[in-house]
């Protein structure tokens, strides 16, 4: 189905039935429904199948290195705070290669939406384990099954007091849309960890598995309570989805730019000030 935000004349590199298609559709619909101007929006991504998403949405994009979307996003948002900035990539990209940036971007709290396609497996490198792979998951590399403890992005983000921490299952589309909208509207860093099946390399964590093993946080859940959010985040069987925690605090741009938030490209340094400063030496 055509959408106004489709980029035309593209060669989509995803496999038939991939969970990425749902996420692509979701982002386009949320952007449209919230009236986000695509010409005022940048999607930054890294490397991997998930990181190809911005090639298929007609917004500005910077597709950089594996794991490095967050520092790029942070700086471009600071240099032009009027932009809507989305950082997008897979679980290997964002939690493995870019793990250090994940922690420190949360600490900075730039006003960006961080969408992580989490399919618990590596796709583009053909089926190895990812940081979120479940224990026992067998791959061509982890021949006896994964032994490492799975990375829990929700509890890590909570430990760092991220301002918006959420998880959705792309198979539960209406719920995912509701959460992503809230993430877009949140001022500050917003994590949306998206469960999506890899139909080629992960025969365990399928659409059905995600449906059977997740459930929505109850309607009376209080997302302002950090300790109870942490308890929910650590629940494993089944896995909770929804908005675990939400709190507002000043953003990176508020700190680094103050009240003056013009795009840096339109500013220049005052030569007289420069001369004056130099003369003091």
């Amino acid at each position, binding site marked *: 189905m055509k959408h106004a935000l489709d*980029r035309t004349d*593209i*060669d989509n*590199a995803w496999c038939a039935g991939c969970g990425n298609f749902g996420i692509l559709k979701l982002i386009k619909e949320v952007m449209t429904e919230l009236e986000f101007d*695509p*010409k*005022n929006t*940048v999607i*930054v991504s890294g*490397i991997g199948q998930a990181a*190809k998403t911005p*090639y298929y949405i*007609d*917004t*500005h*994009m*910077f*597709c*950089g*290195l594996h794991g*490095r979307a*967050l*520092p*790029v*996003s*942070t*700086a*471009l*948002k*600071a*240099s*032009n705070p*009027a*932009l809507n900035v989305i950082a997008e990539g897979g679980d290997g990209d964002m939690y493995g290669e870019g793990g*250090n*940036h994940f*922690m*420190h971007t949360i600490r*900075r709290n730039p006003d960006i939406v961080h969408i992580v396609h989490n399919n618990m497996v590596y796709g583009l490198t053909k089926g190895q384990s990812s940081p979120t792979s479940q224990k026992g998951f067998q791959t061509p590399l982890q021949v006896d099954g994964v032994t490492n403890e799975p990375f829990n992005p929700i509890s890590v983000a909570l430990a760092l007091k991220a301002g918006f921490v959420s998880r959705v299952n792309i198979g539960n589309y209406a719920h995912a849309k509701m959460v992503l909208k809230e993430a877009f509207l949140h001022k500050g860093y917003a994590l949306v960890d998206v469960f999506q099946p890899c139909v080629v390399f992960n025969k365990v964590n399928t659409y059905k598995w995600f449906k059977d093993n997740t459930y929505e946080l109850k309607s009376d859940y209080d997302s302002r309570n950090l300790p109870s959010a942490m308890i929910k985040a650590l629940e494993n069987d089944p896995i909770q989805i929804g908005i675990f925690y939400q709190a507002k605090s000043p953003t990176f741009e508020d700190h*680094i*730019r103050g009240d*003056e938030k013009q*795009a*840096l*490209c*339109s*500013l*220049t*340094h*005052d*030569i007289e*000030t*420069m*001369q004056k*400063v*130099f*003369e003091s*030496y």
Partner: protein
Amino acid sequence: MKNSTIPFQSTLALPPVSLPKHDVPKQYQTHSISILIGGAAGTGIKTLENILSDAFKQSGYFVFSTKEYMSRVRGGSNTTLLRISDAPIFAPCWHVDICIALDADTLPHVYERLTDDTIVLADESITQEKIQITNIPILKKAMEIGSPSYSNSFAAGILFGLFGLDRLLLSKSISRFFHDKNTQENTAAMIEGVAHGESIKSIHIPKLPKPLSTLSNSMHLLDGSSASGFGFLTGGCNMITSYPMSPSTGVLNFMASMSKEFTLLVEQSEDEIASLNMVLGGWYSGARAMTSTSGGGFALMSEAVSLSGMSETPAVVYLAQRPGPATGLPTRTEQGDLNLAIHSGHGYFGHIVLAPGDLQECIDYGYLAFELADRYQMPVIYLSDQYLADSISMMESVDFSAYEQRRYIQTSDETYARYKLNDSGISPRGIPTLGEGIIVSTSDEHDERGQITESYQMREKMVDKRKQKIELTISEAYGPKVSGQGSIALIGWGSTKGVIDEVIKELDDPRLFHVHFTWVHPLNPQDLEILKQTKANIMIENNVTGQFADVLKNHDIKIDHRILQANGFNFFTDILKEEIKKLIKDKA
């Protein structure tokens, strides 16, 4: 933003910028004296260097100072060298006229730099059989005033007393650096020091150079880090994202202090990988961004350097070299990262490497780094080193309005394609929200729009596009600075400029002349012709193999001798002079 304008908007159609013309200082020092002060880390020896440099400048002298220090926070044995002269001076010497030892570790540390004529002033606790020393109760007096940290001001006082200089000027310098904090105590220590200095009669005191009364108003005293920082600001730098690393942190600190004066975003990144990726994010959305680092940190940036090349996103990296491999000698100096800079990043793409040699060049090429990165849409690596970054010298005033400002960002329309093929290889660079175009930047091989492609025909076109950019930078490269004429070229690059200049002037041999490279990569073969007309080419480099000599060899330049040093020290005029004297003795 849609209606906003880009100040100084410019295009590639304009010829490359020219640097403002500067008057080359003509006078040459006829007399200088050198003072070496040694003490432990954390005892304020750097403050002492700043105070004395300033006070000697206020007294009408040209000053050069440099320090060597150990990689630790407290203790150890560090020294600072001051040279005072009657004309501009830009290099250190090994042997010294006066040595002040604030602690017992100093003398063994500096022993080889003392001659029979060196006046050695040491704290009374220090005894030394091999050399004659004059003991002074430095520590005792400082303690009487209240703290051992007043030893520094006491030592400064000794020098001013010894030379009979105006202590009021020294007192002003002390107030300037201590701002109210313990100024009174430091001034008291200084006065005590002056009295002791005046009382030293028994030794032959070296004659001071002739002071210039107008000097203190016309000249500016600063270190290489600050001069580089002024250069980057002149180039419009408005974002710096860095992980601290010696000896690059001076620039980061300078820029942080300037963020109070200018719209200048400063962020300490979690690692060097983040640093350079942030720089790219900044440029992508219209900032003029840079990072600062040293060799180890720069090694971590390699992949992002490559991304700058592929995505054609400009980037500026300030790379202050220190000796490697690995952690190496963190606080010492070397010109060892030239190859790393030239070859950084996988794949074939252009980068420009600049290496300033003095304060004026630090400003000029700091400005140029941003201009070139923007013009050619590629990474520009600005090489400094611990010696250049930390040494303090003097320069004349700079007219900052003389640097032509250009911004190559273009307003885009609906048909915009980020990697549009054209004759120059350089596509107009749009940024988000400036116009109607969608800006697609990518690390994958791409078509003109920026979409991923695996078409071999498109790949060939894009490889050729990046090659064209390299050819353009070669055709527009700045040639070396040639000082004098003769048959034997002393060739240097970067921070060796001052020492080679002084050696040539000291030797006063009509055969010698200086060819100095500040634009070190890529080179235009036409600029190297001068080195094919010489009888001998002597390369002087602060590294173990002669990395730049090899670059020149690859351009068919014969290198007859390589004077190399990789022991953590910079070159010293007196030692280098003797070495070159010996080398050219047998040459016709």
